[in-house]
């Protein structure tokens, strides 16, 4: 067993990265930029958000109303980060 760490050769890693990038290039063929295939949900938001939420900023109405639950979860993620950092450094700041 060698003690130098990584078991893969860097050249092999580069091959992996290139192949993975090729796989991720598939969407560039399958999708159209600037012309979404359908826009049913988003058109609904644009048409109705002012009536339903009263906010002029459609993004704000999505972030805080239609998808407000995601925002709660994401605030929780930030809370977790704070707790985690505080826990890791818990000896240092009291």
């Amino acid at each position, binding site marked *: 067993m060698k003690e130098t760490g990584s078991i893969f050769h860097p050249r092999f890693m580069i091959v992996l990265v290139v192949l993975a990038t090729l796989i*991720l290039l598939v969407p560039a063929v*399958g999708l159209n930029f600037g012309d979404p295939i359908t826009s049913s949900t988003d058109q609904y938001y644009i048409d109705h958000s002012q009536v339903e939420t009263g906010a002029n900023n459609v993004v704000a109405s999505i972030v805080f109303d239609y998808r407000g639950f995601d925002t709660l979860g*994401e605030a*929780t993620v930030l*809370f977790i980060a704070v707790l*985690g950092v*505080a*826990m890791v450094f*818990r*000896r240092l700041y009291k």
Partner: protein
Amino acid sequence: MNMLLDNMPALLIAVPLFFAFLIPIIGKFAPKIHDVWIILASFVSSLTAVITAVTVFTKGTIVYVFGAAAGSPAAPIDSGGIPFRIIFTIDGFCAFMLLSAAIVSFAVVLYLVSSQKERSGKSELYALYLLLTAGIFGMVSTGDLFNFFVFLEINSLAGAALVSYHRKGGIAAEGALKYLIVNTVGGLMVLFGIGLLYAQYNSLNMAFIASQMSFTTVNIVALVLFITALAMKAGSVPFHFATPDAYSVAPSGITAAMIVASQAGLYGLFRIVFTLYGDIFNTVTIGWVVIILGVLSMVIGVTMAIPQKDVKRLLAYHAVSQTGYMLLGVGVALAVLGDPLAMAAFGQTAMEGGLFHIINHAMYKGLLFLAVGAVIYRTGVWSLNKMGGLGHNMKWTMIFFLIGALAIAGIPPFNGFASKLMIYESVFAFNPALSIIAMVVSILTLASFMKVFHSMFMGPQLPEYAEVKEVPKLMIAGMVILTIFVIGFGLVPDLVVNNLITPAADALINNGAYITAVLGGGL
């Protein structure tokens, strides 16, 4: 009261979050009520989960719309039948996962409160633990893909932060960092796949996407990303490397909860493969991919476990190995999904076996981690080479460990045997070689646990452990809860299978019901 019952799926997330957000304030002004607070919080959130699950099993699928006025459907008519808000869709499979998470999380809290009594940073520990529970609940009950990603991140981050709780000279931070990096890459790949689906169907709702699903190359890319990233979260070979690293350094109670957290990844994998892709795709290929992942996990997990000297690392490799059984059982069902005859003959049973193994694994692996944690709590030693003769002083712990070890090795009458039997017999009908591999792995598991049991509890009383006492009663209580389920599920497996597992398996196989529950019968 009715108002509360109607909003139970929302309270499922809101209650643990509410309690967790108050913990820093409590830590500042009244640190003495921490323990009571966390037990209360965990009890209430587990209670909501159990009530939700029971409601699902008695009344059918719950669809809950966040932010809507009372009584509005998930897919209103004026939107053209598109669910445009975040919804929770809790069907049989979700309810089953909720139940398992609720039981384990409550048992672990009792254990954790007692075992971490002397340590600092409890306020963060408890808050993170509650958030981990909330993350699991959210992952298994959401019906929205981006919401799933958010809860996946909550789950990963809270898990990683909890792993780094004990310092152990930086080694815990190492395990946490590896776990976090691996899961972050996985999470971002899941998000990329969600973006691919969104680009084609302009929706994030699972049921709506499932109803529109078509066979395109872009969808295959998304499927591959989902399978690999969620298998990585679940800890399947060859993406398992971070799992033993993280589990072996985490506090024992936390590890028991992280078993359930990794199974939430398994839930996501099954949900996406069956519900989203079940109709359109060539399920034989995907089924065989899942089976191969399962067989690799079983074999490599158990063979890596045998020479381990660190007891928690050994258990972590067994967690990888047991994940293989679930993947095998469900993978066989997936491979024969398009064949109604084979499905009725053995596919259904394989699926039920795989799903039954999920809840069984949560119970007995949780029990094993708690028992090993109790030993480490008293002795402070991880290495099997230094243990021995603890059975003289820790009789209860020994009994619990023995029950867990027999259950994981598939010895009747404990619960591991029931699910393993279902997997063996149905997989034998599919492909005898796979079944034989599963049995050999089971034998190796037994051998490996013989080693652990012998070197921890058997033998003469060693002089350095003469003063070791039994662990506190609250820790015993946590283990007792799990033991009751291990024995109970083993003694009446038919009740569990008929009442919990069959609805869950039906919910996965019949994705039309899932779509109808959300979109209504019109589509």
